[in-house]
C-alpha cells in the first residue's frame, strides 16, 4: 500500500514534458481561417483539433471538439429565453464557415514544466480529456488522459517512471 502511495505521488510530481506527446507534426492542427469542411474531414478521424493562427508559428487560438461540431450540425433551436449574444453558428443556416467560427477560444492549457498533478486537477475541474501544452502561446505538444493512464499503468508494472524522455 505504501508503495502504491509512493508511486502515485512520484507520478504527480512528474513534469508535463516528461509525458506529453511532442510530435507536434502529428497533432490535429488547423488554421483559424480554414474552411469548415476541413474541420469535418479531420474530425471524421480524430476527436479534437487545435486551432492555430497559422501553421508556421503554431500560435494556439482555440480548440474544436466533436461537441462543437454537434452544436452546428444539429438543427439550431434558439432558446426562447436568450440575453446577450445568441449562439447562431449552424451549418443549416450557413453561419459556420471557418474553423475560427466554431472554435472555443477560451482554451485551458498547461505548460511543459507544469506538474502532472496540476494537469490532472485541470482535467477534473474543466471536464477535459486533453490539454494543449503551450510555451509562449505556441503549441509544443499535447497531454491526453490516455497518455497519463498508460504512463501510470506502466509504472505499476515496474517500468521506470522516466524512461523514454527523448520521445
Amino acid at each position: 500500500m505504501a508503495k502504491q502511495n509512493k508511486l502515485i505521488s512520484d507520478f504527480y510530481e512528474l513534469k508535463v514534458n516528461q509525458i506529453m506527446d511532442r510530435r507536434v507534426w502529428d497533432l490535429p492542427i488547423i488554421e483559424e481561417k480554414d474552411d469548415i469542411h476541413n474541420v469535418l474531414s479531420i474530425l471524421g478521424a480524430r476527436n479534437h483539433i487545435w486551432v492555430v493562427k497559422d501553421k508556421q508559428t503554431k500560435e494556439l487560438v482555440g480548440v474544436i471538439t466533436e461537441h462543437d461540431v454537434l452544436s452546428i450540425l444539429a438543427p439550431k433551436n434558439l432558446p426562447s429565453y436568450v440575453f446577450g449574444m445568441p449562439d447562431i453558428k449552424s451549418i443549416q443556416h450557413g453561419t459556420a464557415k471557418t474553423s475560427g467560427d466554431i472554435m472555443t477560444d477560451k482554451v485551458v492549457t498547461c505548460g511543459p514544466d507544469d506538474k502532472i498533478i496540476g494537469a490532472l486537477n485541470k482535467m477534473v475541474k474543466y471536464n477535459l480529456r486533453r490539454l494543449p501544452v503551450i510555451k509562449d502561446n505556441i503549441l509544443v505538444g499535447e497531454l491526453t488522459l490516455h497518455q497519463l493512464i498508460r504512463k501510470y499503468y506502466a509504472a505499476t508494472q515496474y517500468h521506470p517512471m522516466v524512461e523514454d524522455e527523448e520521445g
Partner: protein
Amino acid sequence: MISTEEFFNILLLVAAALIFARAFGYLFYKLKQPAVIGEIVAGIFLGGVVLFFFSGQQYTVSNYVFTFPRFDYFNGNEFKLLAEIGILFLLFISGLETSISKLKKTGKASTLVAIGGVIAPLLLGIFSGILLNFSMQESIVIGLILTATSVGVTARTLMDLHVLDTDVGATILGAAVIDDVIGILLLVFAMGLQSTVVNAVWVGVKIAIFFLIFLYLGLKIIDRILDLGEKIHLPKAFLSISLSILLIYSFFADGAGISGIVGAFIAGLLIGQNIRSKNISEDIKTIGYGFFIPIFFVWIGSRFWSESGTDISTYATIGIFAIVVIIVSIIGKILGSGLGAKLAGMSSAESLQVGIGMIPRMEVALIIVAAAISRGILVDPVAHQILVTTILLSIITTLITPFLIKATFKNVK
C-alpha cells in the same frame, strides 16, 4: 419588519409568479413568440387578479361577508428586491455572453447601423417627449428606452427566414448586440444628468474613477480573485465569488452614480473574458433564468396597474402616448439604422430590411425604465405612464417585427 404571515404570503405570491411566468411563457413559446412576452403578460394578469380580488376587497353574498386575503405585495419592497436582483442577473448574464473579441470584429456596417439606430430614436424620443409636455429628464429616459434593439427576437426571426448568413442578417445581429451596449452605457450619462451643475463635476469624477478602477484594474486582478475561488474546496465556492463580484460591482457602480445595472454588466463582461467563465455561466443561468429573471418580468408586468387608480381616462392618455412612442420607435430605427446601412454601401431595399430588423425592443428598454424609476428620475404618475408605454412598446414591436421582416424579404426575393 414584515410579520410571519406576510412573509409566507409573499412566498406564495412568488410561487404564483413563477408558475404563471412559466405557464404563460410556454403558451407564447407554442405560439412561436418569445417566452419573455408571456412572462410579462403573466405579470399583467397576476397583477390584475391581485389588484381586483386580493387587495382587501369584501364581498357580500346575501348576509355573508367574504373577505379575501390580501396578496397585494407586488408594490412591496420585498418583491421589488427580488425583481431588482433579477435585473442584475439579466445584465450579468448579458455581459458574460458578450465577447469583447467578437465585438471588436464587428464590421463597419453593423457599427454604422447601430450608431444610426441609437441616435435617431434617441433624438426622436427626446423630441416627442418634450412635445408631449414631459420634462427634459423624462424625455431623455423616453429617448433612451428606444435605443436598444432586442437581439433575441431579431435573431429568431432571421433564423426562421434562413437569412442569417446574408449581409443583412449578419449586419442586423451585429448591430443589435452593439446598440445594447451603447444603450446601457448611455444610461450612465442619463444618471449623471439628475444632479445639479455643481454635482455634475463630482459625478463625472466618480464615474471616471469607477471605470478606471473597475474596468481596467478589474481585468488585471479578476483572474487572481477567481484563482482564489478555485482554491477554496467548498461546494460552489467559485460561484459564490462570482456572485459577490457581481454584487460588489453593482454597489460601487451605484455609489459612483452610474446605476448598479451598469456595474452588473461590466462584472459580467470582465468575468466572461476569463477562461473560467465556462464553469460559472451555467450556474449563474440556473439561478437567474430559474428564479430571479422570471420574477423581474412578472413584476414589470404587474406594474401595468397603477397603485393610485385604474380609471379609463388614465389608460386612454397612456394609450395615445404609447401609440406615439411606438410609431417613433419604428420610424427612428428605420431611418437611423437604414441610413447607417445605406452609408455602409447597402442597397435601398437592404437598408430597409436592416432598419426593420432593428425594430424590436425588450429587455434593455424595460431595464432602463426600471432603473430610472428606482433612481427617482421618474416619479408617479409619469413613471407609471412611461412604464406602461414601455411594456406596450416591447410587446407590440416584438409581435409586429417578424411580419414586417418577412414582408420585406418576400418583396426582394
